[in-house]
């Protein structure tokens, strides 16, 4: 099973990442990501890049944009290029194909996130560290990025793969996924803001007081558990929806 999943992962990389749009274009894109997030932004921000809590947490959203092209292509691309049916005639199990597609995108997006974190740390130290004082990320922030980076990457990937399962073209899948990411980014804040405004003044005050006194560790743990539960639910739905007979054009 693991070797079958890995086989699909390697095929995805060879087909989609290394060849789509040409090898040079993909290398250029990769260099651009590392240049902007690993070098330019840390140099612009200075030591604050590793000291303040929000910049690395912001990174947790970086994989969303990295994986979107890959997951949009996962099944819609195979359908568009008429390779899906042949893939489905192989001995590979439904799980091996589905998990292989998901793993390819998660490893790619999450891997780049971690690599950019390391590169930006090197940049900061080269530019701003002194012989007696090396600069590091805060431990709690590092942990948050590692955990939430993975959970968010996984969730977007599974949602994207589900969209791609139904989409007839890569473009259609990409558009639907973009809307989904926008909703994921803005809806929670908008809904919270709306609910906050409709609350009576004294309840607003109590709510703010409650939030101010929340233990950060407890909040992060709770959010992580919520994301984990959502990831599990989305994966279960994707597994249920992945049926060979549904994927064949009637």
């Amino acid at each position: 099973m693991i070797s079958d999943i890995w086989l699909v992962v390697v095929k995805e990389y060879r087909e989609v990442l290394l060849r789509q749009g040409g090898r040079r274009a993909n290398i250029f894109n990769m260099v651009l990501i590392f240049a902007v997030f690993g070098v330019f932004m840390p140099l612009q921000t200075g030591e604050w890049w590793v000291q303040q809590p929000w910049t690395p947490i912001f990174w947790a959203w970086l994989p969303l944009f990295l994986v979107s092209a890959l997951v949009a292509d996962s099944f819609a691309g195979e359908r568009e290029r008429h390779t899906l049916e042949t893939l489905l005639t192989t001995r590979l199990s439904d799980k091996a194909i589905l998990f292989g597609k998901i793993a390819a995108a998660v490893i790619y997006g999450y891997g780049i996130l971690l690599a950019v974190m390391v590169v930006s740390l090197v940049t900061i130290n080269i530019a701003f560290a002194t012989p007696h004082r090396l600069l590091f990320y805060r431990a709690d922030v590092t942990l948050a990025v590692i955990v939430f980076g993975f959970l968010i990457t996984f969730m977007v990937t599974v949602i994207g793969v589900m969209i791609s399962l139904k989409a007839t073209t890569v473009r259609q899948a990409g558009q639907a996924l973009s809307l989904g990411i926008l909703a994921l980014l803005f809806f929670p804040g908008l809904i919270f803001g709306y609910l906050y405004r409709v609350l009576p003044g004294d309840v607003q005050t109590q709510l703010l007081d409650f939030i101010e006194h929340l233990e950060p560790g407890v909040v992060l743990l709770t959010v992580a558990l919520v994301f984990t539960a959502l990831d599990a639910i989305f994966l279960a739905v994707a597994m249920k929806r992945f049926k060979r007979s549904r994927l064949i054009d009637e």
Partner: protein
Amino acid sequence: MTEIAISTHSLTRDFPSVRAVDSLDLEIPAGVVFGFLGPNGSGKTTTVRLLLGLLEPTSGRAEVLGHDVSLEPQAVRAATGALMEHSGLYERLTAQENLEFFGRAAGMSRVDVKARIQELLDPLDLLERRGEQVGTWSRGMKQKLAVARSLMHRPRVVFLDEPTAGLDPVAAAGLRDDLARLVAEEGVTVFVNTHHLADAERLCHQVGVVRDGRLLAVGRPDELRTATGGRRLEIAGHGLGGDVLSAVRDATGVLEVRLENSRLVLDLDQDVRTPDIVRIVIDRGGEIEEVRRGAETLEEAFMNLLEASDDDI
């Protein structure tokens, strides 16, 4: 006892607006090349999808190599190869990468995959070009590679869905030759969908004719020709005009007779015996070189079957 590779029992598949496969009963012995003939939209592709476990039957059942396609679809797919309507090749990958992927997906070892690629591509004249991206190849070359891919893991049954569709006549003939050679060498059972009668005539030991999901006839190509063209008799030779033509025309049970390029072509009542007609020709001084009873070609037999099914509707 003959081993049965593929069997279907009242196999039926409905789609919302159409019954694509209608109570299909087939028994295909192992080692046979079976041609599934029918016009476009007659249910050939749906049948292959059902046999590969890619679609669920609405009713009935099917077995491939003893595996029920609904209950053990993965076992069916492990033991079979398939070339579907499209070549299904990853065009951004090289030929070698394509075969490596499908070989490994079938559970082959790396060493076995490497040896098998050489074994399959060398006789197809593709070995030297295995490092090229498939997207740069001609359609004929892609189809050859797709055939090689379907045989990669030495399956016991291979499904081919219109393997020569879209190829020019030269490429189609080349692919047919390669296919015939590979099939003979590999000793596999082949289920080939086609509406190209030349493919069926050249490749198939048995054929089934299907229309609107219903099986109209099944048998060897020569059996089909005889069965469907049983009222037709052709006699080739010399001195078949004049007296011979008149005598044959007057014989009992001869509905129509005409002379075409030194051939007597007769339409007969079903119970007229060929030797009786031959005797009349010889008695009147005709010289016979060849006698053929039945449809001239499989294509003619096929058309006769379709016309007969039109009459039934």
